[in-house]
C-alpha cells in the first residue's frame, strides 16, 4: 500500500512549541483523511528546529466508491410529487430505480460516486491543514498573507508505493513544493532529493539531522553520559531542559565545560538557574557534593577544531553571567533582609490594594492567628511572616523570580536568623504545584496559609474572582494550596471566621488607596475609615460605629454597616469557593464517595478542611457497617414522610412533641432513645468524636423500626398525627447534627 511523506521546512521553530505542533499535525491530518474516507495503518509526526514532518504508512491509493441513495415518492404518486423529486435530485425519470416496498413500488435516486485518487484528496487536504494550523503564535513574512510559526520555506508531499512515490502538487501561496529538502545548515547545506518516508529519514541522517525527536533525545543523553563517564562528574537531572535542548538542535554535540572555581561558592540553585535560564546549560557536580563545578552545553555542530572555540565561548559567556550573579549575591548579602523591608512599602502589590509592605503587615496578623491554631512558636511565625517577602526586593530575585523563597532562606541564614525562620521563609511558597509537597513545620504552614488566604480575601474584596478559564492571580491554585496544607498534616483552623475578620484588613488597604487618591479631602475620610475598620477588625462594633459618627456627613456609618455585612457575605462566598475545590479534591484525589463528600461538606466543614477529611473518613467507615444501612433506610423513611407532610401543610413540625400525647409504647421508646442519643451525640460532637456520634445514632435504629412497624403516623386524630410528625422531626434534626443523611445514597 502507498505511503505518505509530508515535510514542512521552515525557519527555526521555537522548541517549546514543537511537541504540540507534532500532535496537531498528526491529529489534523488523520481527521482530514478520515473525512475523505481514508485511513492510514500507522503514522508518526516528527520535528526538528527547522522542520515539521509526518510519515504515514499504508494508505489506500484511492478513496472507496460511495453510493448515495435517496428514497422518493411511490410510483403511483401524483405527477407533481415525482417531478419535484426529479428536480431535487437532478435526475431524469429513467435514471431512477424502482424498488418494491410493502405498499407497492417506490422510486429511488441512486448516485454512485466513484473512488477518488488519494493524491487528489491530499492536494486539497494539505493546504487546508497548513492554513488552519493552530500555532499558539503565528506570523506573516515577505509579501504573503500565509501564516506560519516562522517563514515556511518549502513543502514535500510525496505519495505512492515505496520507490515510486509521486510529488503531490500542494499549492500554498508561493511556497515551493517538490521532493527537495535540506540537511544540517552547516554540515550538509545542499539540496537533497528524497523518494519516500524511509529514504527521507535515512538521507537526513546522512545529512547530519536526527529527525526523530525521541531518537535525538536519546542520542543527546547517551552522548552526555559517554562524555561524563570519564569526567568524575554527574549531571543534575532536568527533564524540561532536556526536552527544550532536543528542540534546539538537529545534531546534538554536547560539550563539557568548567565553572570557574571563583563562582563555585555561589549557592547551587543560583548557578543552576542562571545556567539553565540564560544559557540552556545542564549543571554538573561531583557525586555527593552540593556545589556545581561544571556544565554541559549541547551544540548543534561538530567543528573541525573539536569545539575548542565554542567551548571557550561558552565558558566566557558563563563568566560574564556568573559575575552578574555574584554581584547580586554579594550585594544582597551586604543588605540584611530586615533592612530591605522598607523597600517593600514602595513596591505595588496591586494598584487597588496598596504596597507589598501593607501586605506583610496583614500576613503577620493572619499568620499569628493561624500559628496559634496550628500550635506553632509565635515568635518564629511572626519573624518568618515579617521576612517572607523581603527577598522580592533583592537583586537576585529581581533577576530570577523563580528563586523567590530560596534566596530568602539563604539570606536569612547568612544574617543569623533562627533556622526555623529561614526554613519557613522558603517553605511558605509550598506547594508550588500539584506534585510538590506541603510545608513540613507548623510555622511554615501558618505563613503559607496566611499568604494564600490574604490573596483570596484581597481579591474577593475588590471583586476580582476567577471566571471561567481566567484566573490571572492563581486564586484557584491558592485555595487548593490551603486545603492541601491543612489536610495533609491535620492542621485545624476555622477559615470562615478568619476570612470574615481578615476582610476588614483588606478593606482597610483598599480604603487607604482610594481615599489617598482624593487628596486633602480624602485624607480625613481615609483616617476615619481606617479607624472604623480597625475597630471592626478588633470585633468592637460599638466603638466602630462611634468612630463612624465622627464623619461630618454621617455617610460613613452607612458604609461601616455595609462593611460588616460584606464581611459575612464575602467569607460565606469564599467558603463556597473552597467547598468546590474541596469537593473535587476529596472525590477525585482522595477517592471518597461523592455522597459522603456532600454529606460532610453540606454541614459547612469546608471552613475546617482537616475536620472535613476526618469526618469523611469516619463516615465512610460507618457506612461499611450493616447497622448503618438500616439506620439510613429508617432515616430516609422519616425524612420522606416529613417532607411530604410539610409540603402539604406548608408548616414545619419543629416544635417538641408532647409526651402526654403518646399512645403507643413504641412512641415512648423512641422518645426516650432520642433523649439518650441526643445527650450522647452532643457530648461526642463537643469532643469532636464524630465516630462516637455516629455510633450513638445506631441506637436509634431499633426504636425507629419498631415505631414504623407499630405506629400509624397519619392518624385520623389531627393532634396525634401532628405529635407523631413532631417526634420524627426531632429525630431528623438530631441525626442531621452528625451528617447530612439526606445527601447519602442508600
Amino acid at each position, binding site marked *: 500500500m502507498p505511503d505518505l511523506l509530508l515535510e514542512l521546512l521552515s525557519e527555526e521553530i521555537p522548541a517549546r512549541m514543537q511537541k504540540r505542533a507534532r500532535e496537531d499535525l498528526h491529529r489534523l491530518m488523520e481527521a482530514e483523511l478520515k473525512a475523505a474516507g481514508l485511513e492510514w495503518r500507522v503514522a508518526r509526526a516528527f520535528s526538528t528546529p527547522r522542520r515539521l514532518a509526518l510519515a504515514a504508512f499504508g494508505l489506500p491509493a484511492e478513496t472507496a466508491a460511495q453510493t448515495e441513495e435517496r428514497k422518493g415518492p411511490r410510483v403511483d404518486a401524483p405527477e407533481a410529487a415525482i417531478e419535484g423529486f426529479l428536480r431535487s435530485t437532478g435526475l431524469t425519470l429513467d435514471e431512477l430505480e424502482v424498488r418494491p416496498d410493502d405498499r407497492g413500488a417506490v422510486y429511488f435516486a441512486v448516485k454512485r460516486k466513484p473512488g477518488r485518487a488519494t493524491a487528489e484528496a491530499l492536494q486539497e487536504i494539505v493546504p487546508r491543514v497548513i492554513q488552519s494550523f493552530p500555532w499558539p503564535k503565528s506570523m506573516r513574512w515577505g509579501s504573503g498573507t500565509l501564516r506560519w510559526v516562522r*517563514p515556511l520555506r518549502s513543502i514535500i508531499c510525496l505519495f505512492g508505493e515505496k520507490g515510486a512515490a509521486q510529488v503531490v502538487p500542494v499549492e500554498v501561496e508561493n511556497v515551493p513544493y517538490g521532493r527537495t529538502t535540506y540537511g544540517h545548515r552547516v554540515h550538509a547545506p545542499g539540496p537533497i532529493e528524497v523518494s519516500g518516508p524511509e529514504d527521507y529519514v535515512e538521507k537526513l541522517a546522512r545529512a547530519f539531522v536526527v529527525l526523530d525527536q525521541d531518537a535525538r533525545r536519546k542520542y543527546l543523553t547517551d552522548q552526555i553520559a559517554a562524555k561524563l563517564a570519564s569526567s568524575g562528574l554527574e549531571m543534575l537531572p532536568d527533564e524540561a531542559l532536556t526536552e527544550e535542548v532536543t528542540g*534546539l538542535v538537529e545534531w546534538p554535540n554536547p560539550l563539557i565545560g568548567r565553572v570557574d572555581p571563583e563562582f563555585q561558592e555561589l549557592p547551587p540553585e543560583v548557578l543552576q538557574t542562571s545556567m539553565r535560564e540564560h544559557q540552556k546549560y545542564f549543571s554538573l557536580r561531583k557525586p555527593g557534593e552540593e556545589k556545581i563545578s561544571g556544565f554541559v552545553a549541547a551544540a548543534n555542530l561538530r*567543528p573541525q577544531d573539536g569545539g575548542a572555540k*565554542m567551548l571557550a*565561548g*561558552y565558558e566566557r559567556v558563563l563568566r560574564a553571567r556568573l559575575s552578574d550573579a555574584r554581584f547580586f549575591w554579594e550585594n544582597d548579602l551586604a543588605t540584611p533582609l530586615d533592612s530591605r523591608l522598607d523597600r517593600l512599602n514602595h513596591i*505595588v502589590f496591586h494598584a487597588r490594594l496598596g504596597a507589598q509592605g501593607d501586605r506583610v503587615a496583614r500576613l503577620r496578623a493572619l499568620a499569628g492567628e493561624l500559628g496559634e491554631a496550628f500550635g506553632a512558636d509565635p515568635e518564629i511565625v511572626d519573624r518568618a511572616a515579617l521576612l517572607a517577602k523581603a527577598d522580592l526586593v533583592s537583586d537576585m530575585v529581581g533577576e530570577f523570580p523563580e528563586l523567590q523563597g530560596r534566596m530568602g532562606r539563604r539570606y536569612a541564614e547568612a544574617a543569623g536568623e533562627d533556622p526555623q525562620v529561614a526554613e519557613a521563609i522558603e517553605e511558605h511558597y509550598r506547594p508550588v504545584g500539584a506534585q510538590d509537597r506541603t510545608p513540613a513545620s507548623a510555622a511554615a504552614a501558618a505563613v503559607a496559609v496566611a499568604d494564600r488566604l490574604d490573596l483570596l480575601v484581597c481579591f474577593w474584596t475588590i471583586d476580582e474572582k476567577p471566571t471561567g478559564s481566567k484566573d490571572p492571580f492563581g486564586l484557584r491554585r491558592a485555595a487548593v494550596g490551603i486545603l492541601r496544607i491543612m489536610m495533609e498534616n491535620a492542621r485545624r483552623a476555622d477559615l470562615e471566621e478568619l476570612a470574615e475578620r481578615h476582610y476588614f484588613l483588606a478593606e482597610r488597604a483598599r480604603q487607604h488607596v482610594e481615599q489617598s487618591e482624593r487628596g486633602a479631602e480624602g485624607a480625613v475620610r481615609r483616617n476615619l475609615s481606617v479607624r472604623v475598620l480597625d475597630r471592626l477588625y478588633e470585633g468592637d462594633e460599638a466603638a466602630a460605629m462611634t468612630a463612624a459618627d465622627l464623619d461630618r456627613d454621617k455617610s460613613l456609618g452607612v458604609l461601616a454597616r455595609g462593611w460588616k455585612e460584606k464581611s459575612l457575605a464575602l467569607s460565606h462566598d469564599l467558603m463556597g469557593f473552597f467547598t468546590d475545590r474541596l469537593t473535587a479534591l476529596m472525590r477525585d484525589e482522595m477517592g471518597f464517595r461523592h455522597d459522603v463528600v456532600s454529606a460532610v461538606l453540606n454541614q459547612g466543614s469546608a471552613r475546617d478542611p482537616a475536620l472535613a477529611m476526618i469526618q469523611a473518613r469516619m463516615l465512610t467507615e460507618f457506612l461499611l457497617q450493616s447497622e448503618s444501612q438500616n439506620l439510613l433506610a429508617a432515616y430516609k423513611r422519616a425524612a420522606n414522610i416529613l417532607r411530604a407532610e410539610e409540603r402539604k401543610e406548608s408548616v414545619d413540625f419543629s416544635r417538641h412533641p408532647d409526651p402526654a400525647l403518646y399512645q403507643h409504647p413504641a412512641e415512648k421508646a423512641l422518645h426516650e432513645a432520642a433523649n439518650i442519643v441526643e445527650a450522647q451525640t452532643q457530648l461526642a460532637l463537643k469532643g469532636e468524636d464524630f465516630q462516637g456520634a455516629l455510633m450513638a445514632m445506631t441506637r436509634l435504629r431499633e426504636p425507629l423500626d419498631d415505631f414504623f412497624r407499630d405506629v400509624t403516623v397519619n392518624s385520623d386524630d389531627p393532634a396525634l398525627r401532628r405529635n407523631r410528625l413532631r417526634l420524627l422531626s426531632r429525630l431528623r434534626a438530631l441525626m442531621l447534627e452528625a451528617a447530612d443523611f439526606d445527601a447519602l445514597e442508600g
Partner: protein
Amino acid sequence: MPNAQVNAPPRCFQDLILTLSRYWASRGCAILQPYDMEVGAGTFHPATTLRSLGAKPWAAAYVQPSRRPKDGRYGENPNRLQHYYQYQVILKPSPPDLQERYLGSLRAIGLDPSEHDVRFVEDDWESPTLGAWGLGWEVWCDGMEVSQYTYFQQVGGHDCRPVSGELTYGLERLAMYVFGVENVYDLPFNSPDSPVPLKYGDVFLQTEREYSRWNFEVADTEMLFQHFLDAEAECGRILAASLEEGSIVMAHPAYDQCIKASHVFNLLDARGVISVTERQAYIARVRALAKACADAYLRTPQGADEAV
C-alpha cells in the same frame, strides 16, 4: 591581492562597522547615517519605524547611537553603557534568504558558523512605546546573544504589509566577542597599528561618567516633565495641521516630537521620578503619539499604499 584586504576579518571596532556596511551595501542596502536625535534603539530611526509602514519596498542599513540613561554605570561596569551603538538592517519585504544573508554577515566579521555554535532562539519582540511587535529570535553565538532578528508584524498599531525583516546587532558586545576582550573600554576603536591607537575607553569613558551623573543625579526633572508635555503638544499640533485639506502631511516632524517625548520619558525614568503606575501611563502616551504619526505617514505619498 586587494581582494584579500577587503575580505580580511575586522581588527577593531570601526572595522566591524565598516565591514558590516560593506557587506550590506554589496547586498543592495542603502547605507544611511544615524538619525540626528537621541533614541533608545535603532528601531526608532524613521528609516525603520516609518519605512516599515506602507507598501513601498525598502532596504537600508545604518549605525545608530542609542541612549539608555538607566543603563549608565559611571564607566565602572565592563558590560553596561548608557550610550552604545546598534547596527540596524531593514529589508522590506523580508527576502526568503534573509537567514543566509545574516549568517553571511557573521562570516564577514570573522564568526564562521562552521566553527561557532550559531543558534536561533525564540524571542518575540515588542515595543510598547511604538505600538509595534514582531516574531523572530535572538541569535546566539556560542551561548551569547549577538543579534536580534525580527519579522515586523505591526508598527504604530498598523499591520505591516509587506512584512519587513529587521536585524539588529549590538556592536559593542559583538566586538568584545570577536576580539576576545573582557571589558568594553579595552576594545580597540581604530587599528592598534595607527599612529594614535585608540581604545573604546579613550573615546567614551569620560562621557559615560558625565552622562551617568547627569542622567541619575542632575537632570532637571521639572524641566523634563515640561519638555514631555511640550513635545506631546507639538506632535498633536503638527498632526492637526496635517489634516488641513490639500496641505503637506508632516508625519516626520511629528514623529521627531514622539522620539523626543520617548527620550525625555527615559531620562525621567532614570531619575527615578516615575512610579510603577505612572510608568504605564507614560508609555501609553508615547504609544498614542507613535500611532498618530504612523496614521499620518500612511497618508503621505511615500507611505500611501500603491493600491490605494
